[in-house]
């Protein structure tokens, strides 16, 4: 018997992972949720059939979306995390004692419940006393916040489906408003490689550039995402992502990481020419 999970990365390309067994299948008010166990990637979570994370490579995504802004902003006290129902971002954030409060806004309560049960590797710190989970539309939550967060991390799904509202100009504008005067926003920024992902990536960048005057993009290598080449956005009111990197201070924290380090931090902002060009086209 062979059981395979396949995701179409384009109409002509797919990634398949051999499945040992399915741990969960369910449908929430927003999407279909599945958890599989595989030999190669360990457990993995899919939403509406799209790969969200695997136990084997989630550290890359979660480290890069968290430690990059944390190594730049000198005093992060209040953090807002949007999406991220798997708990991976919260797990990384809770490693910083300086953080006083984390609001996590996830639209789908069932995703969190499923991850708590089947993916303790990422969901393990959701009960940290500093964490408040709000089951709400992110766009709605942020509309009423002003001058409140030092850091906003937007860990959204793709811009088709429940995450659509998190790729809009009104959302990024509302994030700007919710940030303090030296706040930073980091977001999942799609991939530059396949044409459809590329145009989603460009649309997101265009809208962020319109809201923040410092807006840079950085990259990481995530094997189970389409093309494996993934981008993150760093938007900021004051700090420059590499110019204001506090490498010495961050290294002094002694955090053990699998992917991130402060040299890679600088390197991640050096992008391939075709990506630079695609970004320039919409700036």
């Amino acid at each position, binding site marked *: 018997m062979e059981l395979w999970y396949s995701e179409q990365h384009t109409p002509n390309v797919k990634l398949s992972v051999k499945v040992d067994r399915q741990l969960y299948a369910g449908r929430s008010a927003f999407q279909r949720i599945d958890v599989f166990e595989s030999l190669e990637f360990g457990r993995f979570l899919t939403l509406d059939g799209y790969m969200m994370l695997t136990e084997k490579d989630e550290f890359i995504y979660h480290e890069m979306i968290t430690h990059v802004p944390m190594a730049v902003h000198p005093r992060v006290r209040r953090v807002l995390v949007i999406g991220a129902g798997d708990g991976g971002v919260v797990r990384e954030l809770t490693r910083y004692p300086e953080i006083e409060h984390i609001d996590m806004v996830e639209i789908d309560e069932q995703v969190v419940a499923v991850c708590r049960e089947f993916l303790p590797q990422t969901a393990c710190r959701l009960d940290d006393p500093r964490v408040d989970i709000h089951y709400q*539309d992110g*766009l709605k939550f942020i*509309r009423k916040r002003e001058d409140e967060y030092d850091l906003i991390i937007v860990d959204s799904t793709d811009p088709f489906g*429940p995450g659509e*509202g998190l790729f*809009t*100009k*009104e959302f990024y504008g*509302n994030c700007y*408003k919710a940030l303090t005067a030296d706040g930073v926003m980091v977001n999942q920024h799609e991939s530059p490689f396949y044409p459809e992902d590329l145009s989603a990536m460009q649309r997101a960048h265009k809208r962020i550039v319109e809201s923040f005057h410092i807006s840079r993009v950085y990259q990481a290598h995530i094997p189970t995402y389409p093309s494996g080449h993934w981008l993150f956005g760093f938007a900021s009111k004051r700090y420059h992502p590499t110019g204001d990197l506090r490498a010495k201070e961050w290294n002094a924290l002694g955090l053990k990481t699998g992917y991130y380090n402060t040299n890679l931090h600088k390197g991640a902002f050096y992008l391939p020419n075709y990506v630079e060009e695609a970004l320039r086209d919409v700036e």
Partner: protein
Amino acid sequence: MPGQSQARAPIYEALRGFERMRVVPFDVPGHKRGRGNRELTDFLGENCLRHDVNSMRPLDNLCHPVSVIKEAEELAAEAFGAAHAFFIVNGTTSAVQAMILSVCKKGDKIILPRNVHRSVMGALILCGAVPVYLNPQVNAELGIPLGMRLDDVKEAIAAFPDAKAVLVNNPTYYGVCSALADITAFAHEHGMAVLADEAHGTHFYFGDGLPVSAMAAGADMAAVSMHKSGGSLTQSSFLLCGPSVNVGYARQVINLTQTTSASYLLLSSLDLSRRQLSLRGRALFAYVRDMAQYARGEINQIGDYYAFASELKNGNDVFDFDETKLSVNTIGVGLAGIEVYDLLRDEYDIQIEFGDLGNILAYLSVGDTHKNIERLIGALSEIRRRYRKDRGGMMRSEYISPAVELSPQTAFYADKESLPLLQSVGRVCAEFVMCYPPGIPILAPGERVTRDIIDYIRYAKEKGCSMTGPEDMDIERLNVIAE
């Protein structure tokens, strides 16, 4: 017809049956089920092209319905509580015009509010009827025209006892309703027909807690835009008739201008939409109303915006209010409605129904989701944060009472000359000037041009309103009656 089940859809069923017969087409349309136009078929889909067929015996004929269209019309009449329903495929404009042409002839008077749709003015030009305008009251704070006051209607009926009909918007574009049942009763006592423009009122027939529908209020005819809140395809519509209407004559009037090649895409969309409304309409419109209520609550919390609704009801010129409409006054933000309308589209990729000088209207329907409502609210909050201005210098859309000098038909066909806007003051206009949307006339043929009107036109143009009507597309000049 009692006993016929609203779960049926005779035109749709006939099309499905016809498809299975695999009839070889040696008739129009020439694309022959799409095979003759591959690009169009790829774009619109094979199913669509396959059902774009001609009238024929198994599918009936809209000009003279005897089988499936007749049955579908009977089901629609039953669903809407009408004595008869006509399927209309030339837009609600065609339904409105058929309604007026059925009751008015050249020189007949018709009592109507000024804030009628341009299709009504078109009907007056076609049949030569003479308008008796009722001054609509204006809500000064919001700058929106309201409904007709019952006392004003009574006065007009007393002053013009020879008028043939009263026309009522049910509701206006903004969702305001007049006391339709009382107006109807009074007009009937005086031998006048009551015609309802229900372009924005389809859902009144299927809602709890919504304003009364024209048929329930006893009106004689109603033009109902099924393609707006009813969910059918653009351009499809119903003309509903009460028991007093001569259906055969009304059909003759419709056939004067309606196509003889009625689209079965439009007809089947009417049939299926009527079925959906009959079976599930109440639940669907309750959902829409709840969504609109939620959006109003949130928008009013943003500050400076005013999303208005039932609190405007005063038992008179706002006799009732359609709570499915999401109208928002933008004056407090220091922006004209049309400016917010443009910002929503250009900056936030959100298209709303219209913006006028002081308000915007977002059209909500059964196709909307909470996710998109949040986008709209989020964008409005951003527009306030980023573009908010001092409210000084804002002009409200004031009602400018028209001075009717000639019947619209006489003026439209008279000898005319073209003058620059400013020089046209004092002359009699020979054409329409409309702010679109909502498509309500600022000037109609036969009306005297005043300085106030010209100022209004120039201000609306400057704010970015789309002005239509005149021969000169840039509206630098106006056609006036030659002296």
